[in-house]
């Protein structure tokens, strides 16, 4: 995702660490962190993904004045009718209605993020490919590479993400 300004903040790191169930004090306690080899609070290894919060166009966040595709009065705020009553409902039940799924995620750490860093992220598309699956039909994979740089222009994290759109809902 392309992000001009991703400020790394202690309170955001705390909330993120809580969400992944990680009570390690390196994510919340300045005094503890100062006594460790690392020397300061750092962000958990998957924190760069939270740059979504700072992407103005991020499509998986409701935005003021725009219809959201999740439920309000009907199951989808962007379909005209309640899909239950629509003949199209079977067509809608493809994996694509969920905006695709996350297939792979890779992070290379040049250094770890800490409060006070102000990152920017540039995104470039990678390869795309298709695969046939028994459980979900044709799978369309696409790769994207995101480079996170700090306030000095130094590369700090390189992320490679692979998304997949499935032909049909994955059989359980």
């Amino acid at each position: 995702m392309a992000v001009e300004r991703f400020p790394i903040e202690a309170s955001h790191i705390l909330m993120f660490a809580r969400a992944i169930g990680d009570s390690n004090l390196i994510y919340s306690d300045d005094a503890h962190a100062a006594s460790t080899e690392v020397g300061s609070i750092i962000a958990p290894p998957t924190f760069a993904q939270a740059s979504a919060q700072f992407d103005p166009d991020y499509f998986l966040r409701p935005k003021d004045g725009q219809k959201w595709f999740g439920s309000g009065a009907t199951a989808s705020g962007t379909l005209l009718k309640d899909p239950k009553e629509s003949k199209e409902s079977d067509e809608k039940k493809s994996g694509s209605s969920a905006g695709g799924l996350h297939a792979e995620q890779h992070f290379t750490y040049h250094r770890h993020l800490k409060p006070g860093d102000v990152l920017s992220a540039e995104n470039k598309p990678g390869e795309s490919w298709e695969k046939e699956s028994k459980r979900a039909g044709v799978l369309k994979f696409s790769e994207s590479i995101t480079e996170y740089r700090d306030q000095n222009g130094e590369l700090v994290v390189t992320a490679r993400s692979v998304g997949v759109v499935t032909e049909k809902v994955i059989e359980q």
Partner: protein
Amino acid sequence: MGLSAQELTIGDSYSEVVVEDLTRTQIVQYAGASGDYNPVHSDEKFVTEVAGYPTVFAHGMLTMGMTGRMLTNYVGDGRLTYYGVRFVNQVWPGDTLTARAEVAALREEDGETLVDLTITTTNQDEKFVLTGNATARVD
């Protein structure tokens, strides 16, 4: 503190239960912290009636984040140089996940000693939900 290369052997492993009985609330908590509000993770009406899944499911990145806790508890804080995964099965409310790392290789690169780890996370039915690799600096 990192791991000591001298005390590591190929095949050594470390595991942790990273979540017991995953709650819908924790999934919502992750949506709020990460900024990924895809309704498939929190909106029962949308996910069953439009997306066609039996119920809401966890973000792959939540499973990667929880598995990362096992990893940093094992290799130490700030020691990872690489962490990459594939999401191989969905994670559902009520799941109990165990994350495991196994030493695959020890090597030298640019004057540093690195350990390569193979990672798996399984659910209560012993089904893989995540597979991956990580590399960390060791002493």
